[in-house]
């Protein structure tokens, strides 16, 4: 790896850093917060107008029985179309997004989503097909789904897949239901699932939802699973272990083969949480490490949109002995045709299927985007995604190791976990304050206070899509924040950040202690 010292250009002015990428973007126009639609409301104002027709008007009493009529009109906001559009446009301009600037939110893989994927998903031949169309009328869609299943199996080293789960956590639950079905089919139902202390919070939640008990196993000083501690909790009550590799510290579980052997020895299964697959894409396959069940977050590794309320997709791939338990119906190629021409597909439900985990065939247009991403990159391109993601994270780790503490001084994978512990001791400025200050600098904040095993954690995942110039701009912003914290006034200012955004520091504690989830429209 090139020494970061050689790659930084302290003599360059800020303006020069625009060449090669403009990372810092402040979308936050104006210094006041946007009022709600109710505050904009003016009695009698409307955003709609009905055409005059020759249909005679009938009194409501004649059309609806009293039991179905409300006593008073609903208290909706009364605004013009102009005000309505202005309101939502202003809100949209105040959003930070992956399309706008660097979004190093660790563990979330907020990479740029290529527009070609959206273009494919909007093709009428895909977008306009009704999910209830018979197989004879949706052969193209089925070919796409089979091809994606095969690609995901090839990438993860697995034998079968379901594309149904709606996102990561839905994939986790699906995986645990598969684990349960498999043990029950062996005539050996089990009670416990092992999870490392550095795991994503969804893992223990899914374990509980799947009807299992969580057993936590501690990490060692190198940030990986303590093999002896693991062996001490393994027995025939353990259904399996859920692991993220690289783990949430961005570190590769070096003992993974020994871990797999130990878990398999007691008859348990290995579940791979695909949250961090971006680090190993095309380099190593979970199947080769000994995993039995894998979930993938298409919105992370395969660059499909990250929700915002929109649909996600969390396909699950499994090894051969679990394939007959997969959710159904699954698309199946019954005739390969000649070079794909004349291929024929049908829907089948695996013999011992756990049943549906989503209506229809999952969030299909997200699946179309993911296949596009895979095909556009190809084998070599996917490997390069992982290599660049790891390179970028390590470059930042080295570049920032003087700015913050580096609790694990070893190469990381796709993200690095630093700590603001020394900064806090010196100045009282905490990881949370650094995150808020970064908003003022025009960057999205990194993940803070996760994983829980690192005090004052800052978890930074630059992803492969940010340029060297962007990384340097981000690092310089961190340097400035830490330098400013060196004076008492600067430190005090940091604890009040962000001060230049429309919504300033929110009181998270008060919001959680006295939660008011409703808005009184009459006030």
């Amino acid at each position, binding site marked *: 790896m090139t020494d970061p010292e050689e790659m930084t250009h302290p003599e360059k002015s800020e303006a020069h850093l625009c060449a090669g990428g403009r990372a810092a973007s402040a979308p936050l126009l104006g210094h006041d917060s946007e009022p709600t639609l109710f505050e904009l409301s003016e009695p009698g104002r409307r955003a709609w107008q009905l055409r005059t027709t020759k249909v005679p008007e009938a009194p409501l009493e004649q059309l609806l029985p009293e039991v179905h009529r409300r006593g008073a009109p609903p208290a909706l906001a009364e605004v013009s179309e102009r005000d309505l559009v202005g309101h939502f446009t202003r809100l949209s301009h105040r959003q930070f997004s992956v399309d706008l600037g660097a979004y190093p939110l660790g563990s979330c893989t907020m990479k740029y989503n290529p527009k070609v994927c959206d273009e494919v998903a909007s093709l009428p031949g895909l977008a306009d097909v009704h999910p209830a169309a018979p197989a004879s009328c949706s052969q193209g869609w089925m070919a796409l789904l089979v091809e994606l299943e095969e690609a995901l199996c090839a990438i993860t080293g697995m034998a079968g897949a379901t594309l149904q789960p709606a996102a990561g956590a839905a994939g986790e639950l699906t995986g645990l239901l598969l684990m349960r079905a498999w043990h029950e089919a062996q005539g050996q139902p089990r009670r416990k699932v092992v999870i490392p202390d550095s795991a994503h919070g969804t893992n223990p939640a899914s374990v509980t939802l799947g009807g299992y008990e969580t057993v936590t196993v501690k990490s060692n000083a190198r940030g990986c699973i303590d093999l002896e501690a693991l062996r001490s909790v393994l027995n025939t009550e353990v259904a399996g272990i859920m692991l993220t590799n690289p783990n949430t510290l961005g570190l590769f579980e070096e003992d993974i083969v020994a871990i797999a052997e130990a878990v398999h020895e007691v008859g348990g299964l290995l579940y791979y949480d695909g949250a961090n697959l971006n680090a190993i894409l095309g380099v190593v396959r979970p199947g080769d490490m000994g995993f039995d069940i894998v979930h993938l977050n298409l919105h992370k590794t395969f660059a499909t949109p990250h929700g915002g309320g929109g649909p996600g997709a969390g396909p699950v791939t499994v090894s051969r002995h679990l394939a007959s338990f997969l959710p159904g119906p699954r698309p199946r190629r019954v005739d390969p045709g000649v070079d794909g021409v004349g291929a024929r597909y049908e829907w089948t439900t695996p013999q011992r299927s756990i049943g549906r985990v989503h209506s229809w065939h999952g969030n299909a247009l997200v699946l179309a985007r993911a296949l596009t991403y895979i095909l556009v990159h190809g084998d070599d391109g996917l490997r390069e995604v992982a290599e660049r993601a790891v390179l970028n994270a390590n470059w930042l780790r080295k570049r920032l190791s003087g700015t913050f503490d580096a609790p694990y001084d070893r190469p990381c994978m796709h993200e690095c976990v630093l700590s603001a512990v020394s900064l806090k001791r010196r100045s009282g400025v905490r990881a949370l304050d650094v995150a808020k200050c970064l908003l003022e600098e025009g960057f999205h904040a990194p993940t803070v206070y996760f994983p829980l095993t690192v005090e004052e954690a800052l978890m930074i995942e630059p992803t492969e899509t940010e340029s060297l110039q962007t990384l340097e701009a981000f690092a310089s912003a961190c340097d400035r924040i830490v330098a400013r914290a060196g004076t008492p006034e600067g430190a005090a200012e940091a604890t009040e950040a962000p001060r230049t955004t429309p919504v300033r520091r929110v009181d998270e504690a008060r919001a*959680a*202690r006295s939660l008011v989830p409703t808005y009184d429209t009459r006030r």
Partner: protein
Amino acid sequence: MVVPCELRYTSDHEWSRFHEGRVRMGITDYAQDALGDIVFVLLPEVGSRVEQGGVLGEVESTKSVSEIYAPVAGEVVAINGSLADAPEKLNSDPYGEGWICEISPVDSDAYSGLLDAASYEQLISG
């Protein structure tokens, strides 16, 4: 960090005080500082029995959810119900008004087996 010398401690950052046959417990100043603003406390039920190290309840802060472990085995005989409306007492007065519950221990020797203030202080400075 405040570590009162008359209390006993666990490596899970909880304090205990033995008084009139009961062990009153809570989380330490170090714990409340590390957790940050505490927003919710899930208390055990009075009358429930716990093993030493067994889960008593949960403390939720703006950063995380952590379990509370029983410092000694026994029966829960009192809980600090005021925490339901004022979980911030764990931050403002962890050794006083922020106490969590009282346990009637099965074995009163278990208390003397807990860490003393000097050992706990060493633990958090290490």
